[in-house]
Each structure stands twice: as structure tokens, then as C-alpha cells.
């Protein structure tokens, strides 16, 4: 089905996730479990962003908003009846009656995000470069404003409590592994290859018959589907959240992971997620240690973001393609030699 180098890439990308789960289960420490689960969820989101951004070359700010759609859809639909009347007193009658399992909710959340993106993004995909980025930024603003003010469903700007807890580390890891396979399959599919051709030369690809806006649209909808699923998985892990969770700060973290790893490849997305998570946890520990020791007169905030921002700028200056670059791990000379792939 696939070229051996792609199979090897898949194997080498799934391996760290499996090792991570194994390590966490063996250790049995709650903190490690939480970090590993967050990593898997971020991995889903980064892979979703990679599907669109990596293959089309267009920066999308709206991604996190689709995560929000997935999170709210899944969280509200799977909320127990008695909880609904407390957490969301103004909820529509139709939705009050519905109660589905969290896993069905995650799927429905993904589909909801995909449907919204399919409708709103179709006309936007004609735009390239700066205009495309501004519209995606505007889309984030529109969706964010709606999330903040749609009291009946999202509890407005306040925190939504009482979402069922269902996500465990193995579930998040299975979802992440699935997304690795989906992202790689899309990249190697006909649509994925054509979309990458459009990225490299829009005019030439159009001239050989690639339907530019349709291809971008396919990538965007798949990306939104993945973000929606990621949002659902996250909602059932964190169990209470507000619209602020789906805004510029989260966008920055996800974008940072993808850019540092390398947006062009699935390997880059996976590597970036692991590397940035390691960096973040290291910094957070340092921040906490400094705060507890009371070296400075006030508590330290924002150090992690400062370091992430500096590393992003540094990577883009020194290695614009990210650390991994434009080759999947299975296509790297060392790995090819090791597995004897021609």
C-alpha cells in the first residue's frame, strides 16, 4: 500500500507515543500521567494543523476555534441531565433531552467542527498569502466572539463546569496514533500530493489541472475534523473550561510546536510536540522552583512563552523549515541505510 519509507516513518513516529504511555503506566505518577495525556492531546491538534498548514503552506489562525467547537459540542452533548440544568440553565430544550456517551460526543464534536469549517471556509480558500492569513484571523475572532456570548450553550465568558471526565492516557494516545496515520495518509494521498504541488507553485499546479481552492478546502476540513476531535478529547480530560482556552495563547503554543518541529512533515509535527513539551515542562519546573524559593520579590509568569517565542524566531531564522526539515524520518539517509530501504 505505502512505500516502505513511509511505513518505517509511521512505525518510528508511533513508537515514541507507545513508549511514553508505557513509561507513564510503569511509573504510575499522577503528574507524569497528566503531562503525557496533555502531550497526546497537543499532538492531535498539532497534527491537525500540519494537515492544512504543512500541505497548503498557508498559516491558519482559525484552527484553535475548531478545537473549541469540538470541545463544546462534545462536552455539552455528553453532560448528564441533572448537571445540564445546573451548568447551563438556558440550554435549548432539544439539547437538554440529548445525552450521549463521551466517545460518541468526541466523534460528533469532530464532525460538527468539520461541518462548520466546510461551510465557512469554502469561499475563503481562493485567497493566498497575507489575505488568507487575515481572513483566518478574522474567522478566529468571529468564532471566539460567538463562543464568548452564546450564553445558552457555552455559558458565556464564564467557565463551563461539569463536563464528564472520560479521557485517560491510553485513549488520548490511541487517538493521537490514529491521527498520525491519518495525517500521513492524507499527505501521501492524491489530494495531499496535489495540495503540496499547489503550495510549491500555485500557477504551475493550476496549469496541470489542480483545483486549487477545492484541494485547500479538503485539507482545511480534514484539519478542522482533527482539531474538533482533539478538542473533544481535551474537554473530557480537563472537564471545565472557558472560551479563553481557545484563543491566541493556545494558538501560539500549537503553532510553536509545529514550526519548531517543521510544518512540512508529519515527523516534524510529532518531533515538535515532544520537544516543546519537554522544554515547557522543564521551564515550568524552573519557574515553580524559583517562585517557591522566593528568589524574586514577585511570582514569575510568562517565562515559558518568552522562551518559546525566542526559540520560534531563532528556528525560523536559522532553519526556516523547522528542525526536521522537509523529509519524513523514514526518508532520512541514516534510517534508510539502517532499514535497507532503496
Amino acid at each position, binding site marked *: 500500500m505505502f512505500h516502505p519509507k513511509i511505513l518505517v516513518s509511521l512505525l518510528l513516529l508511533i513508537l515514541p507515543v507507545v513508549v511514553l504511555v508505557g513509561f507513564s503506566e510503569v511509573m504510575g505518577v499522577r503528574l507524569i500521567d497528566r503531562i503525557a495525556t496533555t502531550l497526546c492531546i497537543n499532538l492531535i491538534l498539532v497534527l491537525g494543523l500540519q494537515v492544512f*498548514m504543512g500541505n497548503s*503552506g*498557508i*498559516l491558519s489562525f482559525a484552527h484553535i476555534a475548531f478545537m473549541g467547537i469540538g470541545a463544546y459540542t462534545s462536552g455539552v452533548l455528553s453532560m448528564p441531565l441533572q448537571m445540564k440544568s445546573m451548568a447551563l440553565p438556558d440550554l435549548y430544550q432539544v439539547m437538554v433531552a440529548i445525552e450521549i456517551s463521551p466517545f460518541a460526543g468526541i466523534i460528533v464534536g469532530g464532525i460538527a467542527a468539520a461541518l462548520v469549517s466546510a461551510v465557512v471556509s469554502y*469561499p*475563503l480558500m*481562493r*485567497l493566498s*498569502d*497575507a*489575505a488568507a*492569513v*487575515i*481572513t483566518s*484571523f*478574522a*474567522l478566529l*475572532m*468571529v468564532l471566539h*466572539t*460567538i463562543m464568548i*456570548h452564546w450564553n445558552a450553550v457555552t455559558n458565556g465568558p464564564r467557565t463551563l463546569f461539569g463536563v464528564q471526565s472520560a479521557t485517560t492516557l491510553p485513549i488520548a494516545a490511541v487517538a493521537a496514533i490514529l491521527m498520525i496515520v491519518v495525517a500521513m495518509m492524507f499527505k501521501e494521498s492524491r489530494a495531499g500530493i496535489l495540495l503540496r504541488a499547489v503550495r510549491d507553485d500555485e500557477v504551475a499546479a493550476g496549469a496541470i489541472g489542480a483545483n486549487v481552492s477545492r484541494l485547500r478546502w479538503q485539507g482545511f476540513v480534514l484539519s478542522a475534523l482533527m482539531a474538533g476531535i482533539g478538542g473533544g478529547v481535551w474537554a473530557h480530560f480537563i472537564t471545565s473550561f472557558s472560551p479563553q482556552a481557545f484563543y*491566541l495563547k493556545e494558538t*501560539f503554543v500549537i*503553532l*510553536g510546536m509545529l*514550526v519548531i518541529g517543521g*510544518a512540512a512533515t508529519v515527523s516534524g509535527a510529532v518531533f515538535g510536540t515532544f520537544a516543546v513539551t519537554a522544554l515547557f515542562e522543564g521551564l515550568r519546573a524552573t519557574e515553580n522552583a524559583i517562585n517557591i524559593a522566593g528568589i524574586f520579590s*514577585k511570582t*514569575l*509568569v*510568562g*517565562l515559558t*512563552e*518568552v522562551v*518559546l*517565542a*525566542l526559540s*520560534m*524566531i531563532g528556528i*525560523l*531564522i536559522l532553519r*526556516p523549515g523547522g528542525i526536521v526539515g522537509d523529509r519524513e524520518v523514514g526518508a532520512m539517509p541514516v534510517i534508510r541505510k539502517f532499514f535497507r530501504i532503496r
Partner: protein
Amino acid sequence: MLGSVIQFTVDALSLGSLYALMALGLVMIYGILRLVNFAYGELIMVAGYTLYLLDGTALPWLVMATVAVIMAILTGLATELVAFRPVRAKSVTAVLITSFAFSTLLQNAALLFISPRARLVPLPDIFTQTMEIAGVIIPLRNLLTIVCSILLLVLFAVILKRTVLGIALRAAASHFTMARMLGVPANLVISIAFAISGLLAGVVALFWFGRIGSVVPGIGLEPLLVAFIATVIGGMRSLLGAVVGGFLLAFVDISLNYLLPQNLLQFRDAFTFSMVILLLLFRPQGLVAGPATGQRT
């Protein structure tokens, strides 16, 4: 009746002239580099914190204001050096990401080194005084905003039309490669564009803080969004368009404030941003078309 007409006009004009200056600062850079500077709002933040840090010194307010504007200009130049120059020749996406990263960097530096909480900005007495025209009370700062902005716009127009610098800037905006071949130094022109952008942001900051009175690390987002909408409405390529867009946006905003019922008013941003998306789709050049497109290098 006359009173409310005056009230409306002064409100719309003072907000509009601020919006116009904000939009102009963003378009200065977009016009030449075809790139959006996501760190634009942080120039206003920097000016605000400069004022806050200078509070308590014996300096007169005008000196503090001048220092704040200079800091905004320096930050604009720093943005160019850090986020634009090293990646300018690479991809559009790379520059957008570096400017977004630089914006986050500045915001979190403010969080880290100053405080997450709001800080008061010193303001001169004239900003809090009011005067009465035809029975309506009008804050003096609104009139001051209008006068200063119009002076700045006129000065700016004269520089762009009459001086060598202005001609070089406009040449670079219309066809960058050709301008370079004719001896316009690329780096210098781009740096000057960023300095002007910083100057505009600095002046805007003085009046913006005159309205809201305090500074927080996330203060830059709203001006950035305003500048975004105004430039898209007016035309991303045209300096006149940015000014028109700024005034138009303020007019629409103030009208919506008067007209929309409370429960819809909260969705105002969703309406304005949907308008941005529709405009980019159906009239991507904006209301005022700019010079013919040229290639960026």
C-alpha cells in the same frame, strides 16, 4: 437635536482619527513589504509602559510623552531587525509567524518584568477637562485628538508627496524591485517605514491611554484588530484607503453603539469581522484601490 449631532460628530471624528492613524501605521508596512506586522499593537503597549515607568519622575508630561513615542519608534525598528529582516527573503508564512512570536515575546516580557495587573498611566490635566458646546459636555481630549491627528495626517501627506524620502517610500510600495534598481536602498526604506509606523503608534498610544487610563500586557490586541479591519475596509495597498477605512469604521462603530439593542451589541465584533471576511472575498482591493501590484523581494 443640535446637541446630539455635535456629540455624535465629535465622538465619531475623534475615534475615527485615532483609528485612521492606527490603520496608517499598519499599512505603511503592508504597502512596502506585503506583510502584516502582528507585533504592531505591542508598540502601543510599549509606549504605555514607558509612561507608567516614567510616572513619579519630575519630568513634565510632554517630555514623558516624547520619550514614550521614541520608545515606540525604537520598538518598531527592533521588530524589523528581529522579526522581519532575517526572514524577509524566505516565505510569507515565516515572517507572519516571527512577527506573531515577537508580539507574544513583548507581551510576556511585560508580564514577566512588570506585572500582569493593570497599571495607571500618568495623564496631563487637559485630558480630564471638559468644555460645553451648545449644551453638550465634550471632553477636551476628544477635540485634542482630532486636531493632533489631522495635523499629523497633513504632515504625513506632505512628506509623502513632496520629499525625496516620501517619493522613495511610495516607489518602494508600488514596485520594490524596480525601486531598488533605481538606487533606493531597500533596508533603509524598510527601516524608515517601521520607524514611521512606530511614530504613529506612539502618538496613537498617548490618546488611546487618554481614553482608557491604564495599561495591561494584552492592551495591543484591540488596536491591532481595529487597524486590521480599517485597512481591509479601506484597501490594504492604499494609504488614503487606510485613513478612509479608519474613519468609516469609527462611524459604523459609534452608529452601532447608538442603534443596536444591548443583546446584539455584544456580538458587534462578530459583525465587523464577518464584514472583513466578506470584503476580502468580494472586493479584495478594499474601497480605495492602491497602486498596481508589484513583487516583493
